[in-house]
């Protein structure tokens, strides 16, 4: 197959570690349950169809360590089943309730079928652990699973505590090996946050490639000959792939992007908010707070609050049309670039995985249409992964990428501004103290070792960029603040207790059961 350019699709799947055994029903845990039903399972079903039909697809997906940890956690798996059973029950009631609204009744049947299928994929097909599905597709050679910072810490804001950057990378690698049974080749830098020199840490742990935003490559030193259309090698030898603006814009843009099409399902009209309170109460939050159920009957319709019933058929047709449009544009782009570059261009198109299905309901359909079309019909574009590309194109320019992120304005401001800047003095101090502990206690066992491991867990959990992001975007700010404080205060108590040789074992057991990420965490990495 000799096509004239490459398309590298990347889905970044991430959710912060949210798990609260101390509550029976915890609002923010729903993020995971919704993402499983609406995003991860549809993607798995898509890949299973490809596998069954022998479609040789190529897709890159980051499954971050917190997400993989949650997907493998027994308690959360149990709770997901409870969640999906309730939705199956609710959607059955909806089939009754909507019998005089045929357009809704059809949707109710659709949701009922979807929820039952999700349960079956989750429980029967993959034994409650859907990381096994991703592993299966990776082992088939179609899916490239990359990792991310251990808890999605934003590396540029950890520059003064490089031991924490190293730990984010090393712990992610260790965890990946546990989950996927091989060493990770690629990494999605959290928020694409790159600070020149971080690639040396990636190199140290055997990574071959990572991704940066467009200007990370364009403003690299020396000037990148092929712009963003070829990866570069950092001086360390690790490859950096830059995001293509044009293909990003077509999907991301709130204004020009596909997901805003009027035929697509409206995210904001959910029966959890729309239906009569007593009826919906058993299916919303236990405290009676209305939440999304995932059952939505309307399409975007237009810019006003007036909404028309959603049509599955028209939504699907639109997704096919948009997939065709996307491929057409990539072919044009590749053809033109090919003449200008004198080399097969590489188009890197990364997206948040949760855009697909959760927010943009037809996103997984769009992706499936697109992948089929490119694999089976295109003479111009070929799907690839970073590893395959580098094998075929081993000679690339040496460039030090520029400091960059994919956040608003392209640098650190999202995670470093008035609402969240107060966290860094505490995070940095905890990093310094963790280093002190790791150096003071290189060999440990028993309760001391448990306490040291727990201190490292509290530190990495505090470092999630999600907390700063939430503070900035102003959604569940109190929760994000509480998480930051809880982890830092737990860390400091552990530090004092370890140094004072007065570890409170009962308390330690309690927080071990709560903040249970990375059971095999290697705290010595901080030394």
């Amino acid at each position, binding site marked *: 197959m000799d096509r004239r350019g490459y398309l590298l699709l990347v889905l970044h799947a991430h959710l912060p570690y949210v798990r609260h055994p101390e509550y029976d029903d915890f609002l923010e845990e729903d993020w995971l349950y919704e993402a499983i039903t609406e995003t991860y399972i549809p993607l798995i079903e898509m890949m299973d169809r490809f596998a069954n039909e022998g479609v040789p697809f190529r897709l890159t997906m980051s499954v971050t360590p917190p997400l993989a940890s949650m997907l493998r956690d027994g308690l959360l798996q149990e709770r997901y089943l409870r969640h999906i059973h309730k939705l199956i029950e609710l959607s059955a009631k909806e089939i009754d309730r909507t019998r005089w609204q045929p357009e809704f009744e059809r949707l109710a049947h659709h949701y009922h079928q979807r929820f039952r299928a999700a349960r079956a994929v989750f429980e029967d097909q993959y034994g409650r652990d859907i990381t096994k599905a991703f592993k299966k597709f990776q082992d088939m050679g179609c899916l490239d699973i990359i990792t991310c910072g251990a808890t999605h810490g934003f590396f540029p804001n950890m*520059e003064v505590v490089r031991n924490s950057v190293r730990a984010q990378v090393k712990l992610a690698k260790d965890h990946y090996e546990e989950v996927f049974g091989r060493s990770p080749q690629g990494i999605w830098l959290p928020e694409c946050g790159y600070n020149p020199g971080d690639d040396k840490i990636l190199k140290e742990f055997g990574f071959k490639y990572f991704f940066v935003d467009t200007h990370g490559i364009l403003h690299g030193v020396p000037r990148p000959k092929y712009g963003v259309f070829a990866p570069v090698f950092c001086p360390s030898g690790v490859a950096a792939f830059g995001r293509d603006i044009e293909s990003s814009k077509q999907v991301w843009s709130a204004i020009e992007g596909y997901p805003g099409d009027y035929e697509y399902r409206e995210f904001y009209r959910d029966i959890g908010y729309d239906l009569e309170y007593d009826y919906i109460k058993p299916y919303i939050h236990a405290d009676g707070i209305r939440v999304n159920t995932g059952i939505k009957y309307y399409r975007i319709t237009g810019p006003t609050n007036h909404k028309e019933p959603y049509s599955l058929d028209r939504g699907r047709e639109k997704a096919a049309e948009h997939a065709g449009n996307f491929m057409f544009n990539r072919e044009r782009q590749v053809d033109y670039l090919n003449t200008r570059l004198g080399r097969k261009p590489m188009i890197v198109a990364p997206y948040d995985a*949760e855009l697909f299905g959760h927010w943009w309901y037809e996103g997984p359909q769009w992706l499936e249409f697109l992948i089929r079309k490119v694999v089976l019909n295109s003479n111009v574009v070929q799907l690839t992964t970073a590893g395959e590309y580098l094998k075929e194109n081993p000679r690339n320019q040496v460039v030090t990428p*520029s400091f960059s992120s994919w956040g608003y304005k392209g640098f650190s401001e999202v995670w470093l501004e008035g609402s969240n800047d107060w966290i860094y003095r505490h995070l940095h101090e905890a990093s310094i103290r963790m280093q002190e502990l790791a150096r003071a206690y290189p060999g440990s066992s028993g309760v001391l070792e448990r306490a040291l491991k727990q201190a490292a867990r509290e530190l990495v959990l505090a470092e999630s960029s999600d907390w700063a992001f939430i503070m900035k975007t102003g959604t569940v700010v109190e929760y994000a603040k509480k998480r930051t404080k809880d982890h830092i205060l737990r860390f400091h108590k552990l530090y004092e207790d370890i140094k004072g040789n007065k570890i409170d074992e009962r308390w330690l057991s309690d927080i071990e059961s709560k903040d249970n990420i990375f059971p095999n965490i290697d705290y010595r990495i901080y030394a």
Partner: protein
Amino acid sequence: MKKRKISSSSSISKKSASAGGKKKKSSASSLTRKHSPAAKRSPGRQDYSRDTKPYYEPTFHGKPPEFQPEVKPAPAPYTPSYDLPSSYNKTKIVLLVRDPYWVYSYWDISGDTYQWIEGIRRDVQGKVRTVLRVYDVTDIDFNGSNAHRYYDIDCHLDAKNWYIDLGTPDRAYIVDLGLIDGNGKFYLIARSNVVRTPRDGPSDIVDEAWMAADFEEIYALSGGFGIGLSSGEMKARGKRIMKEWLSSGGISSPGFFLKRTFDEKGNTFQIASEIVFYGKAPQDAQVTVAGKPVVIRKDGTFSIRYFLPDGAQSIPIKMHLPRQGETKEAILEVRKEAT
């Protein structure tokens, strides 16, 4: 082989050395206007204007600071309160890069250092200012006195953090937190880490083995100038478009779960009606409402709920007892009219 073509960084330092403060001042002030919207600052932090601050020559204040306060790391004891420590009893200042123009600084002051500062304030004559002394240390192994240039920003010691408008991408900086007494003598409290502001445009350095025939075109095609612009466009325009792209929220920095908010419904007035049929029947009965089987609960009750559309509905409710072979039926006529 790498070849440095036109190096903007070296020309800047030459400029500041020859033209002195005045020229630099004007360009800095234009950047300040451009990149310092007041709203971006955290509340409670004093505004400062670069326009009134000259760029000092390194020797202007006499010798570089000699005093190096003793830093005694004495961690504060853990208190089981829910608040994070307000100080870790360490003396330090830390810089974090925010973007090509701004850095964030935070500092902490130990108890001993506080006493030392109080001593200076007590002993010296005249007003003692607290300043952030910003050194341009690009490509320099800084020894305290060899910066390309430096300038001071007045700040409040107790603010404990400050956003600093450096105004120049791709330069390295160190910041000293210190005091200046009435005679211009500088007392160092703490010295920061080195940071380098990010580039905000393409590099001037070209690798001859990897030289694009027309870099501006490649840059434009990559989105640097915006799609489809002629290669003759100015670099400045490219930067502007790049900035627009970077700041067009909704494209970058997603996070759909964390960012989810709900539309303001405004003054929406919506009415809907539903109808509930409920009753009792023997456990083994087969009840249907409008032909649809209904589940009978353990206590013998059942209920079913329908959205009620406008117009007239005729709803048959049937109960069949299979053992007795008995069937009972009722028909409900319901009419809903909205006016």
